[in-house]
């Protein structure tokens, strides 16, 4: 009995002891990236002894928190402007890439059968195209019988990075969209209804005949939602596959942008998927809490080196190797921290 008790006591205390040997880092921000950071955090705890406490409170709030230095790193789906980075002594770098799928609910239309392009998508969400058998849509889809059903556009009711990626793409394609609505995590939508969370968007689209919505590609995959093809910049219709996402990432010219603030939307390339984005992390460049920043960089270095399989499992796209190298160089150059 005493032995059992002792064993139990040891079993209870040991995890606590093991935890004490860990470095704790805190991060906050993007909900888009939360699953991958959480999964990396879980693996990194045992691999390199860094425990991550990540709060998925939204990009805006994450930027707030790192500006106030109440967390060790901030996570944002939108790249932060260069002057803001300078003002708050932050270094910005990308971590993974995620795609956004278009999901539809049309009787008789299978997954990756429907074809859309940026202009029609913008018109649908602006409310100028209201029926599925509109001539513009029919022109894109010869051979598919589009029914005389009202289009029901669905968007994210809560502020989200996915909305930013989607509206940024529409702003690139359609000047009307850029003028009337713009791109942000939360916008003034011109048509349609909102739903809470990706689950809400998918559920609402599933509910209504003629529904169309946008969700993270991981979500569409896992739930076997009916997705649509999009015409990319080169003029090809592509389906939202991992290859298409990777093609867009590879086609991007990362050297032309400052602070890695790449916009991966509407990339050239035959196979590229047009709606995707990198997600960014912000770390302090001043040496106030150098050890914590060093731990953060150690964590993401591990993520770059060993975290790719996990990323692919969650249907994110790892950064191209060249970009990883550039990021590591930026760490060395800009972050005032000795340890690595």
């Amino acid at each position, binding site marked *: 009995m005493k032995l059992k008790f002792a064993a139990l006591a040891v079993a209870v205390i040991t995890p606590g002891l093991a935890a004490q040997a860990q470095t704790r880092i805190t991060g906050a921000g993007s909900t888009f990236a939360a699953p991958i950071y*959480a*999964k990396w955090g879980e693996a990194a705890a045992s691999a390199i002894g860094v425990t991550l406490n990540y709060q998925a409170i939204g990009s805006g709030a994450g930027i707030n928190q790192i500006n106030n230095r109440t967390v060790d790193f901030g996570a944002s789906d939108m790249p932060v402007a260069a002057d803001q980075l300078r003002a708050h002594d932050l270094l910005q770098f990308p971590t993974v890439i995620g795609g956004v799928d278009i999901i539809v609910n049309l009787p008789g239309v299978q997954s990756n059968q429907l074809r859309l392009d940026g202009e029609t998508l913008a018109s649908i969400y602006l409310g100028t195209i209201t029926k599925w058998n509109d001539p513009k849509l029919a022109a894109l889809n010869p051979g598919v019988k589009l029914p005389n059903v009202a289009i029901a556009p669905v968007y994210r009711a809560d502020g989200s990075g996915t909305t930013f990626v989607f509206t940024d793409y529409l702003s690139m394609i359609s000047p009307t969209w850029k003028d009337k609505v713009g791109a942000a995590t939360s916008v003034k939508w011109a048509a349609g209804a909102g739903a809470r*969370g*990706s689950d809400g968007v998918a559920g609402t689209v599933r509910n209504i005949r003629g529904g169309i919505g946008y969700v*993270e590609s991981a979500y569409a995959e896992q739930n076997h939602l009916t997705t649509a093809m999009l015409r990319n910049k080169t003029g090809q219709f592509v389906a939202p596959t991992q290859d298409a996402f990777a093609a867009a990432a590879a086609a991007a010219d990362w050297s032309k942008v400052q602070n890695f603030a790449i916009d991966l939307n509407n990339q050239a390339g035959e196979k590229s998927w047009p709606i995707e984005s990198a997600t960014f992390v912000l770390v302090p460049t001043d040496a106030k809490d150098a050890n914590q920043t060093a731990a953060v960089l150690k964590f993401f270095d591990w993520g770059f080196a060993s975290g790719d399989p996990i990323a692919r499992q969650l249907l994110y796209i790892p950064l191209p190797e060249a970009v990883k190298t550039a990021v590591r160089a930026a760490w060395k150059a800009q972050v005032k921290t000795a340890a690595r």
Partner: protein
Amino acid sequence: MLGRRRKRRNIVMEALCIAATIIGLLLLASILTTLLWLGVGGLSATVFTSVTKPPGSHGGLLNAIIGTLVQTAIGTVIGTPIGMMVGTYLAEYGGSSFISSAIRYVSDVLLSAPSILIGLFIYQLIVQPMGGFSGLAGSLALAVIVIPIVVRTTEDMLRLIPVSLREAAAALGAPKWKVIVLVCYRAARDGIMTGVLLAVARIAGETAPLLFTSLGNLNWSISLTRPMASLPVTIYQYSGSAFADWVQLAWTGALLITAGVLATNIIARLLLRGSR
């Protein structure tokens, strides 16, 4: 002799009222059935032994459950004494003066105030100056909700105590405060307990005030100065997420919180009935 038309009208109205009651009961049944149907599937030991984990990692709800228990407990411990004091003032000291009418009115306003506004208030008062979200802020938001519930119950229960009991105690030479604390509180104990339990049931299920105060925490944390998970907020975050196992946990969590809240409610009512 009852005319046929009047009789018919009576029967129609009675039938409609019975129908309304049946609709109400069916709605309750529907909610409970949905929770059971969707939530039971996720019930397992892991839910209670594991903290929330990334999707696909077989996580549980332990930190959320503990977080709710901690914040509910602290909120109740802070709110109940204040509520009891105010209720005592209204019943024993204030009477029908203008000030006590005002306090009674203010207490009712707090009782009916949208709880999200209380969350905003605590955000401005505590979270912004503190520079971060915390379990303490969450507990304080819940305490503000507890106060008016306990005020009302305490006042009602104290008023029910017969004058003869007080006079007997006073006749024995007890000062007023002893009469209240040693005699009246004891006599009203069951009723006040009922009020406290109802308050506990109410705040355990509150989501909105915690959204901007304790925020939620994906890791294990019982520190009051850091964000703390809670069951309703975790349910809220999981239910909109993109991952099937998280959505399942959301329904299981919903089942757990509803079972807890309803059980507390029923116990409170049994207690009240026992005391009367």
